[in-house]
């Protein structure tokens, strides 16, 4: 009896495997790969959309976009390993952690795979170049100015970041702090805490509430992460709190909260275009594989109509490609942009 049941089990499994196989249907060799931070995140989906658009525009079909199951390094390594085993030529990756991927990326490098990063960087030795969505300096400046403006020039503000290890959030926050320290204009602004919501809606919600409870005189929260800013916006708007919000957010997610009146929690916010970032990563991948650039600073390549240049990351000899300055979303343009991404 057990035998028959076991055979049934085997059959069920075989069917399941082949069913899932046909579902994916990626035949042929894969050359270009994009690995995002995790499945589900709308921002990541937009990056993927841009990557796909650029590849399609170049007539390249041998590419794959992989969203790891969860926003963990473990899941990301699993995905990268399977790409290495498939023998891809380049991997563009938005790293979940700056340190943890190094062993995996080294073994990819050893197999001659071109590694580039976008959105969040890894240790510079582990990649050829980094597609930077916005210059650190520019983002820091835009955010601290927004805080200054919304707070009315003085008062307490807090930052709700992703994780304490998130490379770009940390860079932006550092830049904000440096700019604020350098100019006496910002001397009356007081940063009370940098809280971490780990890019989870729930934890971000909890952290926002904790900030409100802890600091009664809080005027502004600045959240330089799309997940954090959306969670904080909901908390503030639901509570009809007098605390206002700014940061980096997706227009489609934030449209409900953007407005100049008391009913809305966010007067304005910033972001670059993740679709463009995805496109940039795609063109950079192609350029690396074709040998147009080799990852050293000074090289140039064409992305559609625009020509991009590899610049040096401050304090290192590694390169990065800067997408452009952040874009401001306010009540006047949000309705239009929320349809785009």
């Amino acid at each position, binding site marked *: 009896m*057990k035998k028959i049941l076991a055979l049934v*089990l085997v059959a*069920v*499994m075989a069917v*399941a*495997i082949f069913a899932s196989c046909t579902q994916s249907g990626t035949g042929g060799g894969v050359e270009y790969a994009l690995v995002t931070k995790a499945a589900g995140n709308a921002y990541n989906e937009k990056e993927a959309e841009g990557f796909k658009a650029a590849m399609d525009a170049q007539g390249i079909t041998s590419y794959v976009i992989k969203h790891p199951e969860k926003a963990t390094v473990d899941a990301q390594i*699993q995905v990268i390993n399977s790409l290495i*085993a*498939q023998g891809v030529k380049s991997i563009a990756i938005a790293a979940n952690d*700056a340190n943890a991927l190094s062993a995996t990326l080294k073994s990819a490098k050893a197999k001659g795979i071109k590694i580039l990063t976008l959105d969040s960087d890894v240790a510079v030795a582990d990649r050829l170049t980094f597609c930077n969505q916005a210059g650190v300096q520019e983002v820091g400046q835009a955010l601290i100015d927004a805080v200054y403006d919304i707070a009315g020039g003085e008062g307490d503000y807090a930052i709700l970041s992703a994780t304490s290890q998130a490379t770009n959030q940390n860079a932006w926050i550092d830049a904000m702090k440096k700019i604020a320290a350098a100019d006496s204009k910002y001397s009356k602004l007081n940063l009370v805490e940098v809280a971490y919501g780990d890019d989870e809606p729930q934890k971000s919600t909890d952290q926002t509430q904790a900030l409100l409870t802890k600091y009664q005189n809080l005027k502004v929260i600045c959240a330089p992460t799309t997940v954090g800013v959306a969670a904080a916006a909901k908390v503030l708007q639901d509570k009809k709190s007098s605390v206002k919000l700014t940061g980096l957010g997706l227009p489609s997610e934030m449209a409900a909260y953007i407005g100049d009146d008391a009913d809305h929690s966010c007067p304005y916010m910033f972001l670059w275009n993740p679709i463009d970032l995805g496109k940039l990563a795609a063109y950079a991948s192609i350029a690396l594989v074709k040998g147009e650039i080799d990852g050293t600073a000074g090289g140039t390549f064409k992305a559609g109509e625009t020509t991009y240049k590899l610049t040096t990351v401050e304090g290192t000899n590694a390169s990065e490609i800067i997408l452009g300055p952040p874009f401001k979303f306010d009540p006047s343009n949000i309705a239009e942009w929320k349809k785009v991404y």
Partner: protein
Amino acid sequence: MAGKSGRTISATPNRSFLKTVLSWEGALVVIFIAVLVAGRIMSPSFTLDGVMFMMPQHLCQLFIVFPMAFVLIMGEIDISVGSIACLSATTACLAANAGLPLPLVIIICLATGVACGALNGFVLTKWPELPPMIVTLGTQIIFRGIAEVVIGAGSSLKYDSDNLSPFATYLGPVPIVFIVVIVVAALFMVLLSRTTFGRRLYAIGSNRIAAKYAGIGVNRMRFIVYALAGLMAALCALFLLTQIPAVKSDEFGKGFEMNVIAMCVFGGIATTGGKGNLFGAFIAGMTIVCLRIALGLVNVNDNVITIIIGVLLIVSVLISGISQILARRKLKNKT
């Protein structure tokens, strides 16, 4: 030396090849081969090199399958192993970053694991009426909590040294970790099926009170097994560090306990204790590893794999339930 009535009792085991093949382990081997064949058909990258390349990351969990099988055979459960791996990896990182030599790093890592396991064992043997599920749930949160306090929430602690790289190398096409897993598997199999230690485990799992009356130090055995689970979790952490050279308190080893329990149960080990063997658990673990690799290579969403494992788990347990019910019916019809 027959008794008064002169009745004799047979002492020859009744083994048959057919029975072995038709056992659950036999079925697992068939499934394992089916997965390999299906993988080969589906993906051109599913070659020996490809599989071996992807294996190390998945194989680490197998270290914990063996001691977990021991725990389950005793009729208990340990859901803190993932956290123990996390904490051991943390101490290993601290030790390595402090510049300690590799042997010392390894000792510190393994000692952390044993200490954590021993804490489980201590609490559970000091107050045997506590359910293992709740105690290890508590320590699960505590161990990870300690790692969190040490590392910081959401941050990662980098293993800042190359000295683990010998463990990440290959012997021909075979990764070192695979060889170590095989060796460990063999050791644990011998321990369970050939030694008095293993016999005691089955005795405890089948009837704890009778085991005590037969002179088995039940609490001593439990303590040893939980400490062993800690040790193997630390070994898992060590090898995982070669793959993921940084520890995040909320990620490292997370969910391992459930994956490992699933492998054990799929391998025919009953959570009620006293039943199952390591060969089944090992093959089940390898099947799941290869399934993950195969589906990963054809770019199937990892969640599909999760669903398949869930279905396999329930179906495999259902089969034994159903076959029992059917066997009973059959017997009834005979009489």
